[in-house]
């Protein structure tokens, strides 16, 4: 008997049982009137004192902090307070050229000649220092990007350190990575990273590149360059040879200059599909290697036979983790029709306990939207979604008066053609639709130009495998979601980009394999 039928039957018979027992149930009827403690958590902010933020930051080129050629600096805003946090140098073509030259010199002169074991040791050192300074990095990341301290502390920073630690060990073992093949480094890599996981994305990019023996020019996102600059301090502290890693801050044109630089051998980009395509077009006329980790509209499929309470958690974690600023966010919930109503009821109840607010507060679950433009984009898309129709639900949260905050929400009854179900919103906005059979679930999940990730919730093993096989996505989370590990390859099919980051497969983009 299926669960659902069983449940109905229980309900039907229940009345008889309770009727019979009514006389003996005085004790429980008393309980209904009980009103317990209204448990309101007091603020529990993490101290800002652990991190010293300078008034402004220069580029990091050839081991030194150097002022930008233009003399221009851009403001970096704390999205939770709308206050200026610091200023970063604006890089132009000359700055980029300087950085690429430094990387080339380091590559030819030092890094490619160094014994692999020694290269690995530098990475181990970087990992250790990151671990030791983790509190400071966590607070900086939260101040800069608005993500809850809970996440920067427990996810971003430890994972960043873990990535350096993992790839450090590969440096002198590359011949075992691809047996029977000879491998060599590529040269100078230009790496452009996004604002959603600033330090973590820097680690994802730098660690395999350096382990493979390449030198790097890194361009952090203009909204979130702070931890990259703190990382530069770590690189100095680790005594990484000058020029092996260079960091040039700036906006789009800075990145474009890096992509266009003729002496860059490889471009690695994580960010929006639109920019990814632009980069791919630019690189099309060159011999540069390219890896792209782009957007997604990943489906989270919940079957009737799932562990429902854990599935609710998985859905919440899938879309509301990091304010939904996650390329692999489970932004399309596909519910088996038979459980849809009950599931949404549970989801609503769960959403009410999500705490939106001060990112530095240790009890905050959902922090500030990363920057103003994104905040406005989310609001606009949600307004458009409301106009299009569908059941809109938004948890009632008391939002701070200042800062870019947005309560978690979902649109139910979405058809496959609705705006909310198609566009990558990159915010705490979930699209919900239903399916009737596994085939329909797989078809609906694959009905997108993307192919980054997907979730499956079922307690039936063979169904999970069947579904996982059918899904066109690079990462499948079955009975879990948004899990990351340095040993686990990450990356997408189709318009979600190409190449993998993490694991053995993450070495491939940074090596010539012959």
């Amino acid at each position, binding site marked *: *008997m299926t*669960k659902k039928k*069983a*449940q109905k*039957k*229980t*309900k039907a*018979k*229940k009345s*008889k*049982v*309770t009727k*019979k*027992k009514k006389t*003996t*149930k*005085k*004790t*429980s009827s*008393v*309980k*209904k009137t*009980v*009103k*317990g*403690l*209204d*448990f*309101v*958590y*007091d*603020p*529990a902010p993490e101290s800002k004192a652990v991190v010293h933020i300078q008034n402004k930051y220069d580029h990091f080129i050839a081991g030194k902090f150097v002022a930008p050629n233009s003399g221009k600096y851009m403001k970096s805003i704390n999205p939770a307070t709308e206050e200026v946090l610091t200023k970063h140098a604006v890089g132009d073509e000359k700055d980029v050229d300087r950085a690429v030259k430094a990387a080339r010199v380091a590559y030819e002169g030092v890094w490619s000649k160094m014994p692999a074991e020694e290269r690995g040791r530098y990475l181990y050192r970087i990992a250790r220092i990151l671990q030791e300074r983790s509190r400071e990095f966590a607070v900086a990341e939260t101040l800069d990007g608005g993500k809850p301290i*809970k996440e920067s502390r*427990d996810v971003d920073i430890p994972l960043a350190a873990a990535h350096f630690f993992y790839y450090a060990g590969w440096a002198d073992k590359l011949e075992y990575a691809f047996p029977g093949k000879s491998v060599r480094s590529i040269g100078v890599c230009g790496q452009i990273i996004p604002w959603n996981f600033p330090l973590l994305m820097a680690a994802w990019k730098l660690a395999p590149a350096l382990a493979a023996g390449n030198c790097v020019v890194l361009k952090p996102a203009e909204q979130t360059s702070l931890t990259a600059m703190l990382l530069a301090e770590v690189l100095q502290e680790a005594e990484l040879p000058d020029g092996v890693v260079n960091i040039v801050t700036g906006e789009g044109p800075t990145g474009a200059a890096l992509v266009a630089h003729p002496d860059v051998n490889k471009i690695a980009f994580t960010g929006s599909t639109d920019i990814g395509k632009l980069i791919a077009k630019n690189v099309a006329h060159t011999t540069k290697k390219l890896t792209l980790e782009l957007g997604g509209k990943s489906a989270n499929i919940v079957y009737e*036979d*799932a*562990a*429902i*309470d*854990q599935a609710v*958690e*998985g859905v919440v974690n899938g879309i509301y983790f990091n304010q939904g600023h996650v390329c692999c966010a489970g932004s399309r919930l596909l519910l088996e029709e038979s459980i849809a109503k009950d599931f949404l*009821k549970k989801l609503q109840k769960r959403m009410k*306990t999500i705490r939106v607010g001060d990112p530095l507060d*240790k*009890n905050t679950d959902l922090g500030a939207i990363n920057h103003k433009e994104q905040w406005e984009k989310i609001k606009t898309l949600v307004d458009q979604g409301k106009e299009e129709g569908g059941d809109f639900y938004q948890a009632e949260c008391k939002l701070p008066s200042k800062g870019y905050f947005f309560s978690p929400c979902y649109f139910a009854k979405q058809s496959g053609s609705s705006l909310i179900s198609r566009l990558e919103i990159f915010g705490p906005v979930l699209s919900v639709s239903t399916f009737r059979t596994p085939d329909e679930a797989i078809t609906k999940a694959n009905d997108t130009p993307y192919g980054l990730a997907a979730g499956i919730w079922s*307690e039936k093993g063979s169904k999970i495998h069947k579904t996982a096989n059918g899904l066109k996505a690079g990462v499948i989370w079955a*009975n*879990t979601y948004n899990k990351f590990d340095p040993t686990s390859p990450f990356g997408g099919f189709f318009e979600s980009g190409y190449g993998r980051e993490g694991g053995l497969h993450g070495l491939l983009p940074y090596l010539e394999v012959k």
Partner: protein
Amino acid sequence: MPSVSIKVPGGSRITIPHYPVDMVGAGERASSFTKRSIKKESKLDALYLAITMTDLTTLEGADTPGKVKQLCGKAISPVPAHYLQEIKRLAPDKKIRPIPSVAAICVYPEMVPIARKCLEGSGVELASVATAFPAGQLSLDLKLKDVARAIKFGATEIDMVIDRGAFLRGDYQKVFDEIVAVKDICEDRAHLKVILETGELKTLDNVRFASTMAMEAGADFIKTSTGKVTPAATMPVTLVMLQAIWDYYQQTGKKIGMKPAGGIRTAKQAVHYLVMVNEVLGADWLHPKMFRFGASSLLNDLLRQIFKQYTGQYYYQDIFSLD
């Protein structure tokens, strides 16, 4: 485990549904509550509430009337008067709330008459373990006599154990029938807490199913453990039971209470549990009528933390009576 059809008194049948639980996911969710940081007034609220929810327990082979009497004294008045005076001296600006009595004393049936006398008029409930605690390996008629005696002696709450052997061999009907039979004896004279002994059921699937079955059979509370089996109460087990309570409430409108027992020794742990209750079931369950801690050493740490909250100082670890 499939859903199970059970015969209920009167001859009709009900189906007890089985909801699967993913162990890893439940564990992650449970540990998320331990990351909540409860400070200041909200912490004080939680500490006071935890005292009023404590079932102060002694279940030893070495229990004596003397031991039980001392425990009752502590249950009614957990700290001597001079303790509060010291707090007032050290924190003159603060409003000091009086330290409440605990929820109940929990003893073996043979100790109930002694406890009854000590607790007279105190408002502290008197719980007794029965049904051949802790193993539950006795014939039903003797188990029922055990229960009847405890109630006759003056127990207001009965903590019964389920027959885990029957459960694990699939004789769910027997487990169900025993709870129903005990409930019939309790009637409105005593609250029934049903101990699942989750440390012996092992899987969260079993815990979830046993919870639902106990509630269907008439439990007023469901309780994790006897304290005699390791592991006793854990956060994931308690979470799963709370979720079972929620689903049962959604389906029937009945609110069932929860009692984790054993293994909760520190105020910090107790606060984590309260956070979990708050976020899974809500304020209605943050009340001694709906939630209890089965513990013996927890109380002292709660008192110590209250002292700290008022004065900023950590009190002697051994200063509180060890009863």
